[in-house]
């Protein structure tokens, strides 16, 4: 009791002292100091931007360029190498913006998919009991992580893809898939009248997988029996649409690429620019993801595996129930930044002429119209939003795998 009283006394004495404002100078008050620095910083930033924008506007006026987004409706007057939607040189700058955007998304999605695949394969391979596989993972990471990305893009584009044979000497796989210096060609499925049945069955099968997982989990909770969900899901997704196709008499025709004159036509064409950029981005980012996966797995203490083993769990169950769920909380934040880097790095497309957003808009469109502020601003917004979306999704994923403690 005696102690408590003295503490109270000291506290109240302190309170009195601090409320006595006259005892300290106002410039020593941390709040006022903080406020001052904030105001100074904001003022400085404002001054900077006003100057830069004002300057640019003056320059544009001097060269006779009007500001505003009216240029978007003008005909672009140039063609792009590759487009996911129809495009002609008489189309507008607005359309070229969309074309570029879709091309950026395409190469980013391909890149993220394969980078994740390579990353997880080589990241897990690092822990293989096989000496050769383990060393392969180390060599992969060390080579591709240590060479500049631009150099790798050039390597794939100029050294590898450009040395492929000409169209007439194409490398071919079963006379259906062709690879030559002008690109990769593979057949396309063209749906007939009843094709919708097959697509519907495929969609149902994918939905069925989710139902199957829930059913298997429920059944295990009630009876304790385990169900091979992965195998059953694969079988469902592969065989259900095949059955549907067989029953409807295969309502597809295959559009094979065929050599006409000097090149292949028909089927699906992947231009070498897209191939080179996709390969470079996935292999490069994959090396970093492999390191993230390795770090994630290594962050799990050995004791976790030992405890799981002493319970009698099998190695694959230890991986899926103990190691991976815990490793993910280390891997996911790293994956997030790797994905964002990949999207940003896709602007290296400009170096080999792949028509991504940066290349066709900040490159050609800016050059032709001189609308620097508008084009750059629009492009910045796109990359910003795309990466914000990635961040948002990955943060959602992260909070799902994060750990509760205290």
């Amino acid at each position, binding site marked *: 009791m005696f102690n408590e009283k003295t503490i109270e006394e000291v506290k109240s004495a302190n309170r009195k002292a601090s409320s006595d404002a006259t005892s300290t100078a106002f410039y020593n008050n941390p709040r006022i100091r903080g406020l001052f620095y904030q105001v100074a910083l904001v003022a400085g930033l404002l001054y900077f931007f006003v100057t830069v924008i004002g300057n640019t506007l003056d320059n544009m006026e001097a060269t006779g360029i009007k500001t505003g987004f009216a240029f978007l409706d003008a005909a672009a007057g140039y063609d792009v190498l590759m487009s996911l939607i129809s495009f002609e040189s008489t189309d507008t700058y607005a359309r070229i913006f969309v074309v570029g955007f879709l091309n950026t998304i395409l190469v980013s999605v391909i890149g993220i998919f394969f980078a994740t695949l390579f990353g997880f394969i080589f990241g897990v391979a690092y822990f293989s009991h096989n000496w050769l596989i383990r060393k392969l993972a180390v060599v992969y990471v060390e080579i591709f992580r240590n060479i500049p990305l631009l150099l790798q893009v050039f390597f794939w584009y100029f050294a590898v893809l450009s040395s492929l044979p000409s169209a007439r000497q194409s490398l071919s796989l079963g006379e259906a898939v062709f690879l030559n210096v002008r690109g990769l060609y593979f057949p396309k499925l063209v749906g007939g009248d009843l094709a919708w049945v097959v697509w519907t069955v495929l969609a149902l099968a994918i939905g069925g997988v989710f139902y199957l997982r829930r059913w298997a989990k429920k059944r295990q909770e009630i009876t304790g029996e385990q169900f091979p969900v992965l195998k059953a899901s694969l079988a469902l997704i592969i065989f259900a649409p095949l059955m549907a196709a067989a029953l409807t008499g295969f309502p597809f025709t295959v559009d094979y690429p065929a050599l006409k004159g000097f090149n292949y036509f028909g089927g699906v064409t992947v231009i070498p620019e897209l191939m080179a950029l996709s390969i470079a981005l996935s292999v490069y980012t994959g090396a970093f993801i492999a390191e993230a996966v390795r770090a994630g797995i290594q962050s799990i203490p050995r004791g976790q595996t030992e405890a799981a083993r002493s319970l009698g*769990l099998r190695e694959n169950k230890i991986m899926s129930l103990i190691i991976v769920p815990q490793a993910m909380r280390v891997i996911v934040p790293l994956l997030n930044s790797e994905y964002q880097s990949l999207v940003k790095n896709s602007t290296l497309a400009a170096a080999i002429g792949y028509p991504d957003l940066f290349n066709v808009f900040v490159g050609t469109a800016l050059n032709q119209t001189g609308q620097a502020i508008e084009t750059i601003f629009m492009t910045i917004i796109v990359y910003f939003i795309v990466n914000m979306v990635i961040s948002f999704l990955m943060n959602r994923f992260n909070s799902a795998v994060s750990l509760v403690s205290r």
Partner: protein
Amino acid sequence: MTAISSNSNTEDVIVIENLNKWYGNFHVLRDINLRVKKGERIVICGPSGSGKSTMIRCINRLEEFQEGSLVVDGVEMIEDVKNIETIRKDVGMVFQHFNLFPHLTILENLTLGPIWVQKKPKAEAEEIAMKYLERVKIPDQANKYPGQLSGGQQQRVAIARSLCMNPNIMLFDEPTSALDPEMIKEVLDVMIELAQEGMTMLCVTHEMGFAKKVADRVIFMDGGEIVEENEPEAFFSNPQVDRTQQFLEQILNH
């Protein structure tokens, strides 16, 4: 499953014969011979690096050994996944650092084994888990995560997690060494209770009070070999070997 060798008594649940283990050139275990009867409580002590943890970790194959034989409950420890699994299901283990799964709740930590190894329905597994949580006196913590519990509570959960698998043998690898002094008692109490119920126990510990109270035999290891083994009374009052005497002096008189 290989039958145990002919000269062993059927009462022996663990038979270790001439076991040798090396880490590279380092000889960690030298000619270990040990027989443990059903229901026997054995305390293993010795200076750090003496191989005591390594020895009990061989019993459920967390460590491999190069020479000798090891038979647990009639199953010989050989390079055979089935044998190793059978033995691990039969042997529970409690670690110095608890090794609870931090991403699972206490209840999920306890039901993991019964659900995925014994293939029990969830409801039944949870019933068993709650029974053991009550035995270690923390049923109210069932839905918390390990990180939210004190060290003593975590270790009691770890004991309960092993017991959920209904093992015949329990291994304790310095179960109280990572605990604050005031939490040691609550863990030892659980272990004493377990011993009194007749569980076969091998316990690496320096808790000599525990050894005097429950052990049937105390084993002293040094330099990778069993130097001395005796009943606790004789072991503490009249150690035969110099090294044992020195060790006991060091840990008892401070």
